[in-house]
Each structure stands twice: as C-alpha cells, then as structure tokens.
C-alpha cells in the first residue's frame, strides 16, 4: 500500500465568478520513506495540492472531486476534528517562513513539545526530554539554552531547524515541506537539505517537498512531479526528469534555470580586460 495516494484531485477557488479551477485531475502515489518533489511556477497549484492533504485550505478553497488516501484512509472525507488527530501526529508540515510559522511569544522548546502534548500521554519531563533529543537531532548546539529562547533571538536557519524539530517530534510517517529553504541563504539552504536527507534516511520519514527551485529538488528528491497550471505535466525519477525530460514544458523550465553552462553576456572567457 502507498503511504499517500492522491486520485483525481480537483480543487476550486470559489471567490471568483465562475470558480477558478486551481488543481485539475491530479493523481499520484508516494511510497513509504520516499522523498517526492513537486516543482512548478507560481499558479501551478503545487502548494494547494500539498495543503489539501492536511485540510489546510482557506475558506473559499474547496476540494471539488477526488480522493486523498493516507494509508488507505480517505482524508478528503475526514471532518476537521478527525483531521486534527492526524495533523501533527502522522503527517506534519513545515513552511517557507519560519518567522511567521513560530509563535513569537512562546519559548521555542514549548513549541517543539506541542505535538507531544496534543497527541501523546507523556509526562512533562518525558516531553521535555524528547524535545531536547529532537533539538539535538536537528543539529542545534547548546539545546538546554535554546529550549528557553524566543524565535526572534534565533537566526533564520536556526528557526527553520526548530520548525523541523517541532514537525518531527511525534515521528510522523509523512512530512510535507512547502518551500522550506526558499527564504534562506545559499549556505544555510545546503545545511537544511542535508538535514532533511539525514532524517529521511534515519527515520524513514516520507517527505513531500514543494519547491519552485529545480536545483534544490534535484539535490534532495528521489522522484519529481512537474506541475503547470493545475495539471501534472510529467512525473519520474530525478534522473528521468533532469536528464531526459519528455515534455516541452519541462524542457522549457529546465532551460530557463540559470546555470554556469552558458552566459548571456558575450564576454571574453576568463581574460582580464
């Protein structure tokens, strides 16, 4: 059985007349322990697809057809209450902006523990012990000290590590990551990608990784889905998509990525002027 299977998902925005179809008949499956990337430009529907898994859509956004099967259970039919039991326990999520997704008035340690308090019956001491272990796991130093700090006292990279710790503390089977490295500097970005890879290997956590950045997707993922205007354009392993893209759109997308292959400038190669 797949960890997550999405069948003929259709999603509409109802704040316009006529309703805008944002996701059109999207189907894919994801194995346990797999890192699956969804890549696309703005308006491709990649984020809405990911958010629909956790029922985190806005008021005017609605799933109009299709099934979202998580370990065989259809999440699209779950009530908000039933979803809450899944959210943060079996499926967790991390977001792009770690500053706004952490509560500014709570020490970060408490926020890491939150999932345990909601979903387990651990005592206070056990919760704290596990939170500290988790902070070590995401490669933070002086965890006892960090436990009592507030988000604004930490750097962007550290905050993203805290987010990851909070998401993984309940040992979920699936982690949904929506552009988690986009707001970070290149050097920090590298570190976070390595961390996600390590956690995936160690705990066998499935990661659904949403990004507009083809370079990041290529470094992290096993398989890739390319989306454009609400539809899946192409799906395959990283090698297939990046080495032998079949569809025109994928080729165009890959060609647009700035690389060090060819410069737009007609400069004299390497010569000092």
């Amino acid at each position, binding site marked *: 059985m797949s960890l997550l299977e999405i069948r003929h998902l259709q999603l509409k925005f*109802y*704040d*316009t*007349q006529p309703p805008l179809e944002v996701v059109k008949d999207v189907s894919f499956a994801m194995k346990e322990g797999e890192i699956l990337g969804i890549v696309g430009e703005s308006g491709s529907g990649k984020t809405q697809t990911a958010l629909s898994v956790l029922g985190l859509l806005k*008021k*005017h956004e*609605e799933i109009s057809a299709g099934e979202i099967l998580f370990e065989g259970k259809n999440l699209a039919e779950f009530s908000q209450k039933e979803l809450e039991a899944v959210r943060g326990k079996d499926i967790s999520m991390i977001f792009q902006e770690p500053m706004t997704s952490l509560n500014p008035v709570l020490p970060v340690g408490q926020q890491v523990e939150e999932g345990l308090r909601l979903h387990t019956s651990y005592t206070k001491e056990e919760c704290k012990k596990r939170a500290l272990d988790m902070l070590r796991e995401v490669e933070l130093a002086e965890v006892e000290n960090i436990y009592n700090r507030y988000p604004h006292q930490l750097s962007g990279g550290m905050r993203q590590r805290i987010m990851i710790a909070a998401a993984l503390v309940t040992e979920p089977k699936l982690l949904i990551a929506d552009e988690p490295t986009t707001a970070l500097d290149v050097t920090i970005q590298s570190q976070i990608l390595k961390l996600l890879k390590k956690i995936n290997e160690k705990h066998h956590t499935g990661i659904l990784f949403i990004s507009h950045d083809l370079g990041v997707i290529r470094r992290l993922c096993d398989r890739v889905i390319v989306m454009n205007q609400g539809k899946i354009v192409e799906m395959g392993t990283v090698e297939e998509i990046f080495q032998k893209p079949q569809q025109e759109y994928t080729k165009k997308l890959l060609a647009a990525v700035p690389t060090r292959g060819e410069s737009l400038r007609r400069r004299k190669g390497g010569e000092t002027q």
Partner: protein
Amino acid sequence: MKKKQKNYNLILGIFIALFMLLFLLAGLFYTPYDPDAMNGAAKFAAPGTEHLFGCDHFGRDILSRVMKGTGTTFFVAVSTVVLGGGIGILVGAFTGYFGGWVDEVLMRFNDVVFSFPHILLALVFIGVLGPGKYNVILALSVVFIPSFARITRGEFLAQKEMDYVKSARLMGVSHLRIMFVHIFPNTLPSVLSMAAIGFNNAVLAEAGMSYLGIGVQPPDASLGRMLSESQTYLMSAPWCAIFPGLCILLLALGFSLLSDGLLKKGGK
C-alpha cells in the same frame, strides 16, 4: 456553494446617506410650511394629513423644521470635517513624511489634545468663544484635528518606505509632489473612512451641544435643539422628539455604514 461576498455595508450606507442628502437638499428649496411660523391653532397637532410629522408646542410644522434642522446639522458636520480633517491631514502628512523633531513636537501636542474627551474640549472652546453655529464648527474642528493627523501620519509613515517613493526621489520629483500626488491617493481609503467617522461624531456632537443649549442658537433650527425643546412633552406629544431623533439616527447610521464599507473595500 460559496459566493463572492457583497459589500452590503457600502450599498446600504450609500443608500441611506443619499436619502438623507436628498431630504435636506429638498429642505433648502421647499418646505411644506415656514419652519419658524407659529400657528396657535395647530399647537401639538398629531401627525396627520395636514402636518405629516405633527406640530410642536408653538404649532410649528415639525416636518419643515426637521428638513431645515437636518440641513443645519449637516452643514456643521461637513464644515467640521473639511476644516478639521483638512488641517489634520496636512499635519499628519508633514509629520509622517519628514519625521524628526517637527514630528515629535506636533505629535506630543496632538497627544495632549487627544487625551481630553472630545465633547469636554469642545465645551471649553465654546466657553471661550461663546455659542453659535460658526463657533461650534470652529470648536469641533480643533477637536477633530488629532485623529485625522494620527491616521494620515501612520499611512505616510508606511508609504514613505515603499520603493516607489525612493524611485520618485531618484527621478527628481519634489517632496511636496511626492507627498500629495504620489502618496496621498494611496491613503484615501483610510482617510475617507476616517472622514465618515468624523462626520458621524460631528453630527452627534452638534446635536449634543445644541441639546445643552450651547450650540446652534434660535432661530436656526437644529436637530439637537428640537430634541432638547421637546423633552418636556415627551409623554404627551412624542412626535416632537421621535422625528428629529430619527433623523440624527439615520444621518449617523448612513455614514457609519459608509465608512465600514469603504474600509472593507480598501482592505481588499
């Protein structure tokens, strides 16, 4: 099925405000009777075909007086908003855009004015200036300056950090032109809704002051004054109070819905 939400506040606000506007405009050109003419025979006449809203203790036609009174109240409120709002916007624009010590001084002064209850401060001014329509306008305007200055200053503070302002500077646009041609239109949604709130407060303040007898003076008809005069006969001739009251209510309600609606529209 979820639909795009209609802005009912704005629609209803426009409707009521327009209705009141037509009502008072009509009053400028035509009233069924002379609003000041006393008619002993019609003393306390109940509303009926002859006098639609009835008559007061002097036998004056209430409909005619309400039409004139709404006009007076409206004139006072609009003048207050234009005068107080205008000065407030200027103060807010300069302090918000330039900052520095001018900002500090003016805003501290603003805080002082702001810390007194509106009506109390207006009473002090009337105490100094003496009662009357124009003094009421003057007093209320001064009282309204701080709230306009504050809103405008906040908007200018936020807008001046936008890149389009830097861009305009680089192109050699003068500060004054940036303030009033580039930035000001972007502050209109909040300034307009503030103006509607201010208008409301002015209507209520004028009515309150006239009710206390220190506002608009006879023979000018004013809604507040009519309420004040009718309180003695509240049980025997309730129509003397109901109709002016209703007009105050509609004026205030219309413009408050209008400001809500404008804010909602601007927030999108």
